[in-house]
């Protein structure tokens, strides 16, 4: 679905991502995991065209991502960031319906889709006219997810979507996200620093360190056939959490 071919990103002399090859499989949930500053968010922003690679190419279903086709590709990908990224001057429904309105899609259809998404994300429809400032953290993330899903995208990009939530809400949303991923069957790339969350939600884990992919595989593969000592160290440090 998405291929990174020898992609690197530098900011001046600072290397954010070393030359990397990465293949994201269609219909799978791939989680990018690693310590802060390892380059996981950089990969997400490169795929969405928010930043351009210093070297290499990124293919989206065989199409090389460039400034010419980025709008079309962005509309085929839903994007959710840590604090929701909702626009404070728009109500929940205005945030969700912004793009359908921009693309002049039928109002009846989008309204129907909004209702379905409310159900899917368990968002109370009576809060649709509330502004982001009037919603709780969890509710904002649900709205953000609805906004990402409204155009029925092929790919979902989630950058620490649950990072700013308290443990209870986070745990409940993790379960809901898993259900949503399963029911939609979409290609998902999720960034997290939490191995438990990565393993719980993802089919494939990509472990990064200092802008380099250390290992790609299932949790079992990472545990039983670690590529190097860092992988073992990373898993061990979070083992107690995984075992809970």
């Amino acid at each position, binding site marked *: 679905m998405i291929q990174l071919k020898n992609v690197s990103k530098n900011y001046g002399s600072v290397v954010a991502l070393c030359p990397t090859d990465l293949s994201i499989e269609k219909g799978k949930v791939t989680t990018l995991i690693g310590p802060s500053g390892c380059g996981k968010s950089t990969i997400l922003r490169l795929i969405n065209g928010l930043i351009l690679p210093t070297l290499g190419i990124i293919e989206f279903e065989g199409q090389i991502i460039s400034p010419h086709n980025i709008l079309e590709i962005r509309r085929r990908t839903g994007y959710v960031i840590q604090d929701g990224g909702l626009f404070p001057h728009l109500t929940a429904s205005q945030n969700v319906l912004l793009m359908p309105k921009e693309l002049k899609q039928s109002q009846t259809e989008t309204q129907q889709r909004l209702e379905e998404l409310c159900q899917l994300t368990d968002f109370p429809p009576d809060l649709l006219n509330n502004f982001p400032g009037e919603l*709780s953290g969890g509710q904002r993330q649900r709205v953000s997810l609805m906004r990402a899903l409204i155009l029925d995208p092929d790919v979902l990009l989630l950058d620490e979507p649950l990072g700013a939530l308290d443990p209870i809400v986070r745990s409940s949303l993790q379960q809901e996200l898993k259900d949503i991923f399963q029911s939609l069957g979409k290609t998902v790339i999720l960034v997290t620093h939490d191995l438990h969350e990565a393993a719980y939600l993802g089919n494939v884990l990509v472990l990064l360190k200092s802008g380099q992919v250390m290992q790609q595989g299932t949790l079992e593969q990472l545990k039983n056939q670690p590529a190097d000592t860092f992988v073992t160290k990373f898993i061990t440090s979070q083992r107690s959490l995984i075992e809970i």
Partner: protein
Amino acid sequence: MIPFLRLKYLCVCCIIILLLTSSIRAQEITIGSKKFSESVVLGEIIAHLLQKNAVTVEHKQRMGGTIIVWEALKNGDIDLYPDYTGTIRQAILKSETDLTFEQMQKKLSTYGVSMTGKLGFNNTYAIAMKQDKASNLGIQRISDLKNHPSLTAGLTHEFLNRQDGWKSLSKHYNLQMKNVKGMAHELAYVALRNDDIDLMDAYSTDAKLLEFELTVLIDDLEFFPKYDAVFLYRNDIDSKSINIIKTLEETIDEKLMMQLNQKAEKEKDYTVAASLYFSQIKSDLTQESPSNSMLTPTSASFTSKVAKFAFQHLKLVLLTMIFAVLIGVPLGIIASQPGIFSQLILGITGIIYTIPSLCLFALFIPFLGISEKNAITALVLYALLPIVHNTATGLQTISVQLRESAAAIGLKPSAQLTKIFLPMASRTILSGIKTSGIMTVALGTIAAFIGVGGLGEPILSGIDLNAPEIYILQGAIPVALLALLIHLLFELLDRIIIPRGLRQSDGNTQKRPKKDEVEELLASSAE
């Protein structure tokens, strides 16, 4: 989005109304006058005379000094104004030598301008002192000033700078005065009375010379040339109007002019003074009582006067603000992007802001003449800084996350700007526009110096006539009320335009957890 559409329609409606009101103007003769009572009274006399003969007139009162009014006449911004032969020869025609009446006519005709015959009085410059001070110091003639170089002179800016003014006078009489101050003519009388200054320049027909019992120093070395009053008019005005203007020739002598000036100052009204002229002329002919022949003032009632000035002022402010927003917001958008253009735009608008307002008005006279265009151009330039600065700041303070979100969901750059960034910065932008609006209301009063009218006009006239009731009631209070009105209007706009989500605490901040959420969290921690 809807409030922005509403604003767009509001702007379009304002432009249409202003275009309509400015286009509904009949062909008319525009009279100019300089910024002192006598000039305005003469302007009012000719205005009424033309009106009586069914000519539509507009009188731009108190436009400024000689150069400003002369430039306005040359450019066709006005059709006629009163001036003096001495001034025409030296300040306008720049002639070192004496010129005959015919020579002056010939030179003026190269500018498409003609001069009427003499109106009948000579208003030359004079140097005046308080009677008691002059007699105590033994000063009767200008030559006597040589022995008193420490005296303080309070002179009009025009007299200080004109060729036949203070510099030449000092040279002619070999004066070595050390303390020379520039000040407004009418204020100099007050300063003289309070002994803040010792001598001043005056016009020989000034009513205040009588009122304040001042001594006019004898021009013993005959420095001051003749200043016979005349009207200068453009040759392209119709012959009927020219003939009417010429009927004023030889009808006003020094005594009458001094009376008219006194009337203007006593009644605090130029129209009343002009009516005295007509009653005098009529009573000379018919021996009628002057009170029976009073003119109907052009703007008689207090309310209609204030309404007229307020309307002119509001129009000036509204037009200024429309242009300032149309130019300032796009400039602010460019200035919000990092780079050389940002620095350049913010730098230039900042520099413009530091230019003294009168200088800026005067700067555009050669290009735009004495007109509303000139005033609006200067006011727009002043109004730019708060709008540009606030637009740039409002846009720059939008977080990177929200900027990226706007791009990531697939909005085009133009839609990101209009649908997300501008509405998000709307509160800061509106606050900049409000600051500009209130500032323009205040600065707009300066526009009266170039005869554009507005609430600055009663302020200047009031100071000229030493009538606080005019400049406070008709000028200062309406300006303050207008500023308050603008403030309230923007408060209202804030409620209409600013989305509710922005009026609450920052939409991105985490909402305080509800009570049940807190209890749940505490319970889970206890476990």
